[in-house]
């Protein structure tokens, strides 16, 4: 069995699976259950400043998008930070950390954007013995209206400023949690790094309306006839999150900055993908909310089995391994030619590939009277749509044409040379190939 022990910023945890700051980590009771179930770490639900805690709505807090068979694909929420007194949270964190010294415990914090507020709370958090802090610059609903959360995360200068305060008043690792509700994730990441952040974590939730109640003509979740945008998360956001993680991992200015990956991680494979893109560990919320804490057991066994199969003995062996292969479009090899191939034995003859190709793509699939579907190589541009709409995994695949083979669509043999847009004759600003 592979060793899943993970060292993130010097914080050791039995595995790279942490629970993200969210309702599942709001209380000692939940966190103890989480550790007992096997989670490697927990980012405690965001603490606010001393004084009367925030209040939450008393109507529905979540909205959802379902896939086939009512599988939860996306969840949004309008819950705020912890609505329990600061003292209670700090006491509970202290007790939990004492009982679980080998598990990671991180405090998420969101206080007003002034130095005094941060200076006041940081020593109290430090007293709990927790392993580090995460700055919640991400929540897009409610708190943003009060100048916190994503309102800070959307202004790189604020990110840098607050990070600097935290590094000044707190001596353990500082993780900056980023909001995806921006145009270019690299700017807030650079600001965090400039402020001295030890790591960034992303993504927080995405501004969203999940559905509209057509009887009441109001968005869901609906509170007394009104709704508001909430933070979207779950499997549906994973592609958005992975791109943002990769962008930071490959940006020369932030390359090497540790990343805690968040966004729709539901299985061991999701986690491995985030880590391959540069995340040193991952944080999970929606999967736990959907399936309970026990879901981590599959993540642990799956990641461990995969690492054994690959010969990885430590998570460090594969973290970031896919980063060098994330590139700009202009560097993709335009001489690489593939064609769709349909496995006739696996084909169930549903015809979805045909409809997709005939109606919306390149008319590159033929259909016989007895429902045999074949690829027309002279039309196939290898767009992959047929692969993606086919209900049978592995039935349609892409075959790479060997150099020298004839591409029947272009009438040209496949070149063995690498050639991208920067050198392509159709590119007006092409530079001559070396």
């Amino acid at each position, binding site marked *: 069995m592979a060793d899943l022990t993970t060292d993130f910023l010097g914080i050791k945890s039995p595995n790279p699976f942490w629970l993200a700051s969210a309702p599942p980590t709001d209380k000692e009771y939940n966190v103890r259950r989480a550790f007992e179930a096997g989670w490697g770490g927990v980012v405690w639900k965001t603490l606010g400043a001393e004084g009367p805690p925030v209040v939450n709505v008393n109507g529905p807090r979540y909205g959802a998008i379902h896939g086939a068979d009512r599988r939860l694909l996306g969840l949004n929420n309008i819950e705020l930070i912890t609505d329990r007194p600061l003292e209670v949270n700090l006491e509970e964190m202290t007790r939990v950390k004492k009982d679980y010294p080998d598990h990671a415990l991180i405090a998420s914090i969101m206080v007003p954007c002034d130095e005094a507020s941060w200076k006041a709370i940081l020593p109290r958090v430090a007293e709990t013995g927790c392993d580090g802090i995460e700055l919640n610059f991400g929540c897009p609903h409610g708190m943003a209206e009060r100048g916190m959360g994503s309102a800070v995360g959307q202004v790189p200068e604020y990110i840098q400023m607050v990070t600097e305060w935290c590094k000044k008043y707190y001596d353990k690792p500082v993780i900056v949690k980023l909001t995806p509700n921006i145009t270019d994730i690299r700017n807030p990441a650079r600001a965090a790094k400039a402020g001295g952040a030890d790591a960034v974590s992303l993504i927080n939730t995405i501004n969203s309306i999940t559905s509209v109640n057509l009887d009441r003509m109001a968005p869901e979740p609906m509170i007394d006839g009104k709704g508001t945008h909430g933070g979207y998360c779950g499997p549906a956001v994973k592609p958005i999150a992975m791109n943002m993680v990769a962008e930071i991992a490959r940006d020369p200015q932030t390359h090497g900055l540790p990343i805690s990956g968040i966004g729709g991680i539901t299985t*061991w494979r999701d986690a491995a993908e985030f880590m391959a893109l540069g995340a040193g560990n991952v944080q999970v919320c929606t999967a736990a909310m959907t399936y*309970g804490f*026990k*879901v981590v*057991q*599959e993540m642990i*066994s*799956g990641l461990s*089995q995969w690492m054994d199969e690959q010969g990885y003995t430590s998570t460090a062996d594969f973290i970031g391994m896919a980063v060098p292969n994330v590139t700009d479009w202009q560097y993709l090899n335009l001489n690489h030619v593939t064609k769709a191939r349909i496995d006739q034995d*696996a084909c169930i003859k549903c015809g979805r590939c045909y409809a997709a190709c005939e109606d919306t793509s390149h008319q590159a699939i033929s259909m016989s009277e007895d429902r045999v579907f074949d690829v027309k190589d002279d039309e196939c541009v290898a767009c992959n749509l047929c692969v993606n709409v086919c209900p049978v995994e592995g039935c349609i695949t892409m075959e790479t044409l060997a150099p020298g083979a004839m591409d029947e669509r272009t009438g040209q043999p496949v070149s063995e040379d690498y050639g991208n847009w920067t050198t392509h004759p159709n590119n007006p600003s092409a530079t001559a190939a070396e």
Partner: protein
Amino acid sequence: MSSKQFEEGIVAGRLDASALDANFSDLHPAYDEHEALVAADRCYFCHDAPCQTACPTSIDIPLFIRQIATGTPEAAARTILEQNILGGMCARVCPTETLCEEVCVREVAEGKPVEIGRLQRFATDTLMAKAAQPFDRADATGKKVAVVGAGPAGLACAHRLAMHGHDVVIFEARSKSGGLNEFGIAAYKSTNDFAQAEVDWLLGIGGIEIRNGMALGDQITLDSLQSDFDAVFLGMGLGAVNALRLEGEDKEGVSPATDFISDLRQVSDLGSQPIGRDVVVIGGGMTAIDAGAQARLLGAQNVTIVYRRGQEAMAASEFEQDLAAQKGVRIIHNAAPIGIEGNGSLTGVRFAYTETKDGKLVTRDDGFSLPADQLFTAIGQSLTGAPEALTIEGGKIQVTEAGATSVAGVWAGGDCASGGDDLTVTAVAEGRDAAENIHATLMGDA
């Protein structure tokens, strides 16, 4: 069509080879990967799942199905085998319709459960095709344990003991190991000699020696085992077949259903296995169903299972009854055999209808006769040759929940022991749990 199809008497080759092949193919064929993923996707990953509670070996079913769904069937197999080392066979023979699948929330909600048994088979088959059994032995303890019977209980017990570092010798009366997995299960439930393959795979852990042809009370005694070993586990099953107690029971053509089922599993060419044209099976359990259904599949023209009580009292599950009916077996309820007909060989069986009076089953004066050239009896089996020192309860060796008998140092499990249904999966659970208790006792933790 074979010319022998309608021939009177007990003859071989009623059906041609291709018909026999089709009839005795896998009852629940293996899933391919796509089918497994689609089936796994239906699982809701229930909390404190009813399926897991219903499983006698408490396999974490939601977890292993999720492991299949996420592309790690090997991890799924490990989840299964940690609880049930014979998970491969149980996937094939468990009456899932009365266990895990009966309580699946999707069975309750939609009348269509997640197909847990077939998913379990997919996982265990995948692992067994790829790898040796996945468990390692703990450091040697120097303790020796004798296990009597190489059936599900004995094998499960031996494997768990070996895992804990003990050395195990299994004494098996028959020349082949596997117990009822090898001799007592319908051929279409365990194809391709799976039972033997599973035994070989299980023994891969090491530290287990099987001595065949060693029967308790014959080549070995409890006393000798107790003096030679640190602990003894008895899992020899039930030996004797219950008799009808009717005149003519010794006629040619009358035999225990268990022998027929066993013969079918050992015969290499089904075309050489003789079967009657008109077959009657007496009994209401799984053995009756297995015998009746297989008689039809071999080419018997008329097969009737007769059970003395009503349908609701049948030990065979509804699924099994439907399976027999689907093969063309007729099931008659509330009739008891009262006479065996035939001068010389068997020609028929007389029955009286039964009814319940004052809570007692009684025969009525009216009844019927069924023509028969072959009669299989399947009215249960009894414990024979249990060592005298042991306390017997309800015809079985009395054991505690942990499998301990009334004699210190002796444990028992499986069909020969009290408690639980007589199922493969129950025997595995009892063997496993007894092994844990033996281990704790030997190591001074109990």
